[in-house]
């Protein structure tokens, strides 16, 4: 139990003194991505091997949260030189121990190879994926053991809380947050300081703070990684926030489908209570605060603030009109301050380093860094953090390593299902809250899906609407009925039943849903349709007027044919076709019967001579 700020400082010092800077360590990522690829086995084998060879005094092995480079998992870092091994299997452990740990040699085949230069990279910070990033919120993700509070304290954890509670008045904390320019990183982008101030000034003796970890966008996993890898940073931010606002109870609303995040957060809360950072009379300054975890209701819409509040109250997770804000009347009609977990994790950084330090990074109205889950047709899939205002091109090519197989990039979808598609021409766009909104998309929860030339934008719009029609809560008519009808029209278009007036009706519907829907989810739901209509109108026209899918995706509009000059009559496609739609004698031209063909594409993938094309 830590009773005073001095005790905390003493603990950190003693932890640092105990550490031998030359002691070797093995850090194995056990985030969900690497775990799925068997990193738990790798960690166990390391422990066993170290025990067998009696290396415990010389080597420490520990689990860490997500390093971000999920594409190359399981990721292992060997310290203190920070040697970076990727795609490590349990069978590789023996070699790593004998070569790297005992003799200081590299295991060449496990090193990361730069795809452009072909050079092997030895250290973590030299990998281009990491080199181009500015990791702040995620800084300690791959460094500390999320289940051990001492690890967090050793890297300076809870110092911000000590500083805030002992040296700063509540007003000063809010001023600092306001001055830092921090905006809600859950996607809304509302100025955090202003929200805190309104909540602090709202009348009421009981106030609440909520951490929103109900991340539900397809392809986004930044909140999950943070909750799994560095849960204490979120708790610390919430404690500081609660102190500044004057709340004594906090809730962490976490998606129930994130079992590891729930587990790590619960462990973190228990440890924080044990050490006296949560509970009664925190650090002897007479401030009481407690945090309770609430499991998400299992609906996408529960991430919307008013639906989330309803869900915590035990009512159905559906939004209400927010003409009276949650900061004035939220949870049980009490002033409630809700922020995304990433926003909370920024608070210790601002308190420790000052508002000016935070505001130095970023653009005019968007300060600090942005976290994105970079996925789709990109070489380096993973979790990245870059300064606000970084051009899209830089994110995709420098950090993401470009598009695989040398294909052309067609569009980038940001902001999850309610974001928009940004076309290739706008790749120089600096990514911040306002620029993305101007381009018809949004920051959202930080999903970034890269699409290559083989993507049909009409089909993309259809796909996201299909997701939304089941995830709309169904309360208001525009969102429920409107999305259904937009999907109906788009399905018609992709199946060759598009009519001339469809595009106008689609635009009309999208605008109505945007203006008339009740909550943020509904209002942003037509963004994919609106942005694809705006930037890829020709592709829609080709579908509707010429009944043609230029990208060769929509099955009803394409036809597979065999090129006469390329087909050698090898028979590879003929054997694999599930419909027996291909006919032809050996060593003679084969032909596809379009009436039997179901356009599955197996023949095209199997042809060794690239003789099969889509029209």
């Amino acid at each position, binding site marked *: 139990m830590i009773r005073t700020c001095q005790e905390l400082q003493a603990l950190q010092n003693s932890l640092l003194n105990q550490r031998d800077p030359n002691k070797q360590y093995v850090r194995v990522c056990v985030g969900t991505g690497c775990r799925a690829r068997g990193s738990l086995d790798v960690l166990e084998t390391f422990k066993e091997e170290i025990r067998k060879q009696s290396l415990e005094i010389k080597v420490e092995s520990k689990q860490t949260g997500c390093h971000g480079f999920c594409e190359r998992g399981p990721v292992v870092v060997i310290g203190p030189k920070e040697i970076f091994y990727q795609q490590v299997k349990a069978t590789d452990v023996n070699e790593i121990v004998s070569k790297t740990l005992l003799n200081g040699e590299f295991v060449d085949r496990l090193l990361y190879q730069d795809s452009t230069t072909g050079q092997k990279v030895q250290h973590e910070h030299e990998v281009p994926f990491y080199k181009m990033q500015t990791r702040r919120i995620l800084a300690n993700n791959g460094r500390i053991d999320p289940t051990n509070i001492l690890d967090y304290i050793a890297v300076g954890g809870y110092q911000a809380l000590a500083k805030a509670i002992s040296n700063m008045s509540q007003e000063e904390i809010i001023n600092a947050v306001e001055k830092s320019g921090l905006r809600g990183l859950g996607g809304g982008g509302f100025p955090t300081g202003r929200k805190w101030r309104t909540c602090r000034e709202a009348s009421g003796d009981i106030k609440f703070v909520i951490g929103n970890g109900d991340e539900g966008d397809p392809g986004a996993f930044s909140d999950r990684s943070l909750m799994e890898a560095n849960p204490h940073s979120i708790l610390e931010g919430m404690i500081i926030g609660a102190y500044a606002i004057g709340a004594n109870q906090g809730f962490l609303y976490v998606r129930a489908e994130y079992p590891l995040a729930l587990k790590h957060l619960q462990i973190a809360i228990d440890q924080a209570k044990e050490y006296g950072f949560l509970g009664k009379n925190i650090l002897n300054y007479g401030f009481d605060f407690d945090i309770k975890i609430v499991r998400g209701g299992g609906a996408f819409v529960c991430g919307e603030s008013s639906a989330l509040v309803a869900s915590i109250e035990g009512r159905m997770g559906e939004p*209400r*009109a927010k*003409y009276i804000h949650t900061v004035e009347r939220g949870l049980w009609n009490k002033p409630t301050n809700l922020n995304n977990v990433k926003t909370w994790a920024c608070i210790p950084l601002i308190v420790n380093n000052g508002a000016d330090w935070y505001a130095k990074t970023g653009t005019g109205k968007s300060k600090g860094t942005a976290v994105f889950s970079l996925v789709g047709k990109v070489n380096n899939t993973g979790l990245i953090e870059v300064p606000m205002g970084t051009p899209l091109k830089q994110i995709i090519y420098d950090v993401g390593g470009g598009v695989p197989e040398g294909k052309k990039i067609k569009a980038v979808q940001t902001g999850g299902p309610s974001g928009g598609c940004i076309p290739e021409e706008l790749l120089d766009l600096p990514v911040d809250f306002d620029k993305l909104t101007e381009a018809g998309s949004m920051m959202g929860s930080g999903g970034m899906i890269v699409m290559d030339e083989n993507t049909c934008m009409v089909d993309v719009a259809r796909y996201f609407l299909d997701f*939304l029609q*089941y995830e709309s*809560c*169904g309360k208001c*008519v525009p969102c429920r009925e409107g999305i259904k009808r937009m999907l109906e029209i788009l399905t018609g278009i992709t199946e060759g039943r598009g009519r001339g007036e469809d595009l106008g009706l689609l635009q009309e*519907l999208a605008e109505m849903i945007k203006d*008339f829907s009740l909550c943020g989810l509904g209002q942003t739901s037509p963004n994919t349709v609106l942005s694809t209509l705006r930037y890829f109108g020709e592709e829609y026209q080709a579908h509707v007027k010429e009944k043609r899918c230029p990208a060769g995706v929509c099955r009803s509009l394409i036809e597979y044919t065999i090129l006469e000059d390329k087909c050698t009559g090898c028979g590879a496609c003929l054997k694999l076709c599930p419909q027996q739609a291909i006919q032809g004698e050996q060593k003679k031209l084969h032909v596809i019967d379009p009436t039997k063909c179901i356009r599955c594409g197996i023949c095209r993938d199997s042809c060794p001579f690239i003789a099969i094309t889509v029209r």
Partner: protein
Amino acid sequence: MSIYSNNSKIRCDRMVTLIIDGTKVQAEEGSTILEVARFYGFEIPTLCYHEDLTPYGACRLCMVEVKDGRRTRLVASCLYPIKDGIEVKINSDKVVKRRKLLLELMIARCPNSKTLQDLASKIGLEKVRFKMENKDCILCGLCIRMCAEQMSGGAIGFVGRGQKREVITPFRESSDICRNCGACMYICPIVTLQCRGTKSPGDLCNSCLIITPQCLERYEQVMCTLESCGKCVQKEEK
């Protein structure tokens, strides 16, 4: 406080001044735009609103344009609390266009509701561009609020989300709480008597627009004492 919303009203005696469609009116602070507008005789179409139930804000027919300072936005008038100096436009071009499309979506879902068909004729919706369905619930939630708030029941509620949302008793079993009072049916805008117009059921009716209203033959001056069918007004405008 209702189980479906926590928009409990703030009531105070302070009067504020606002402008509705160009007319300056005064009303108690804390009341909603819809309440004030109806009190002064302005018509705003609604479906999920009932003056004795908690406003729910789901049908979105009552959307109006509000100018507050320099900011103009569209709000649901049944929920928006009035403020001093706001300017309300009930039928701005933007709102009217979107409201029509919204009603078009509703009719396409429940074409056999007289309430909806009447509304359609009133606001001049003459064509439905979507495939007609024949659902018997528009999910306005009136029955649920009626049961819970006026009948002290709470026998029915919403289940599911998105396309799977429906009104049902818990676990789809007959409820012990339900007293078969029929209040839910009484307030339902869909299971009323169907419109006996000139078209077959399942289409947009518009009969009121096509036929000449009897009132014009009976009275020289247009003096409709029943709920106005709107025909006369529309004729004047044309």
